[in-house]
């Protein structure tokens, strides 16, 4: 440890640059590679229909400032198309409960698995985590038959339940591991201070678990918001209840005759996830337990 630190301190600036160079290059490369398609999509969404059909998005660059290359009509069409605003609201109505329900259940379950001693908790936890192997596609038909019997098909609760169910194993797994890593002396201290399990959960564990709750909320939000299959199967194509992804697919038309609208529609549907991600991403950096115990 000490020798390593000394060796590190002795390195010159040049050696450090050489050492970090491959990592930095890789990070930049990945960032650029992942950004190019999105950027292309953004450019395309502002181009007139015939331009899109006739040439690639990069061809705008020689004379970027030529107004003939740009148009807002795609966005106008998308936003004025009947049902798009409604689909946006439907997506919200599906996504918010489908995020809140599994997080609430998983938080309780994770606390139990992490801090309550009951027989068989390890087996049960393994079982819950093991459920992650169930493929979504295989479960669709059985669930649909079940929903038919309870007359749930085409209703929002059907989608909430499906997403909650499929999100729970990962949620329980993530939350339990995070809660289990909180310092046990803090919980013991609260026990001695007179707190029961519910108080410990509510007053200590939940506030301290905000980073992991936020992380999972982001994952689940993006997953549900972007989901097409589950919404299509359980909600269907009916304009009254269809969600954004389904509406988007319809927009292009059955034979793709309006596919020039897709980039603009995609960006409209991306706005909310972007806001959610950017506003919660600081919680990815864990730092909330600083100062509790010496570390």
């Amino acid at each position, binding site marked *: 440890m000490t020798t390593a630190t000394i060796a590190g301190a002795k390195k010159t600036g040049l050696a450090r640059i050489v050492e970090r160079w491959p990592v930095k290059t890789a990070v930049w490369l990945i960032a650029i590679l992942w950004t190019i398609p999105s950027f292309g999509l953004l450019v395309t969404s502002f181009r007139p229909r015939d331009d899109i059909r006739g040439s690639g998005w990069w061809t705008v660059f020689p004379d970027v400032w030529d107004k003939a290359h740009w148009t807002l009509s795609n966005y106008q069409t998308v936003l004025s198309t009947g049902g798009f605003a409604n689909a946006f609201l439907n997506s919200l109505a599906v996504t918010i409960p489908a995020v809140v329900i599994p997080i609430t259940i998983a938080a309780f379950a994770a606390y139990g698995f992490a801090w309550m001693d009951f027989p068989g908790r390890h087996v049960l936890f393994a079982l819950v985590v093991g459920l992650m192997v169930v493929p979504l596609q295989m479960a669709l038909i059985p669930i649909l038959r079940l929903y038919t019997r309870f007359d749930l098909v085409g209703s929002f609760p059907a989608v909430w339940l499906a997403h909650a169910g499929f999100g729970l194993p990962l949620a329980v797994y993530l939350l339990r591991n995070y809660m289990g890593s909180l310092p046990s002396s803090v919980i*013991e201290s609260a026990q001695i201070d007179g707190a029961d399990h519910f108080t410990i959960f509510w007053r200590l564990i939940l506030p301290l678990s905000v980073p992991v709750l936020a992380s999972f909320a982001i994952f689940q939000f993006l997953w549900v918001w972007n989901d097409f299959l589950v919404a299509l199967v359980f909600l269907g194509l009916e304009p009254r209840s269809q969600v954004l992804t389904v509406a988007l697919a319809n927009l292009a038309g059955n034979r793709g005759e309006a596919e020039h609208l897709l980039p603009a529609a995609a960006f409209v549907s991306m706005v909310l996830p972007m806001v959610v991600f950017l506003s919660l991403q600081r919680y990815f950096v864990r730092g909330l337990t600083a100062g509790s115990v010496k570390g």
Partner: protein
Amino acid sequence: MAKITLDDIGKIYPDGTRAVGHVNLDIQDGEFLVLVGPSGCGKSTILRMIAGLEEITEGKLYIGDQLVNDVPPKDRDIAMVFQNYALYPHMSVFDNMAFGLKLRKMPKEEIKRRVLEAAETLEITEFLDRKPKALSGGQRQRVAMGRAIVREPKAFLMDEPLSNLDAKLRVQMRTELSLLHKRLGTTTVYVTHDQVEAMTLGHRVAVLRAVSPQRPYNLQQVAPPTELFNEPVNLFVAGFIGSPAMNMVYGHLEADGDTVWAVFAGNRVKVDPVALERHPGIDERMGDRLVLGIRPGNFEAASHVAGADPDKQIEVNVEVTEMLGNETFVHFLLDEEPVMTPDIQELLGAAAEEEAVMGHKTQFTARVSPDVPVTAGDRLALVIDTAKMHFFDPTHGVRIGATPPPGMEAMVQS
């Protein structure tokens, strides 16, 4: 406030390993009792059993007159201070201290009064609005103490509360802790591995040792610090208490009329009768092989003692000297195989093998006055205060004439 009684307390884990066995302790009302021992000796487990964080599998635990074996921690009316402070990171210092009181539905005014008073005592009033992460280690430690104080519990349980602080702060907090206890007078059980902390803080100190299948007992000796130092019950306690550690060497006693001589490693010194009186039954052990113990502080350079008795002197070749300013430590070797009983092996741990490699020499350390002109390689005459010599049985390590520690009675009688 209350007394705490441990009646034959034991702990066996579900997998069958024993961590604690047959611990009997009567902790008096208002007493400061220290549990001390090397790591793995079960001291923290005992404390956690008193707190209710660890299930008691054997024996009975009383707080006051109430049997509390099955009482959950929150109903035992005790407060605990953890080594890593265990503060609630998302709460302000005030809320940290008030948390336990709020849960007990105490009126707001009373909570405020108690927290402010404790904060004043601990000099943390200015930090009441801060979060723990904005505090230094010493300040966090005070908050942890404050959280215990405001509860006004029957007893404080402290699990190595100072060991995360740096050396200087530790000494300061030790003094403050001692003053605090004088002021509050709350029964305190304090766990540490630091024998200096144990000696300076404890009214009584319980020295503990890891259990073994043959000896399922942790307690070695429970006594006030001076008694532990002057009359250690066996080699384990003798070697653990005192810094630098007690010197030990194989040797024997010879009676020559009224005079008794201690013979070890080619030396022969006259034993003061006081030392013999402190070891009842020593007369019957004349000529037997014993372990002789001499603390470093019971040496002095012959040149610095007026009228030094030539019969109480040894001459040594100085190997190493350590000048500490107000004292000098002189290290030398005696021509005798090192004392290596199970007690000593346990104390030395991994260092025991190293010691064995050292071969047939026994290391000794003597403390002499700082103005003794001595350097490595010198020949030095040392006077021994033989009134303070200790004699132990070489097989089981129990002090001659002492009541053996629990679990070792049979070995001593055989």
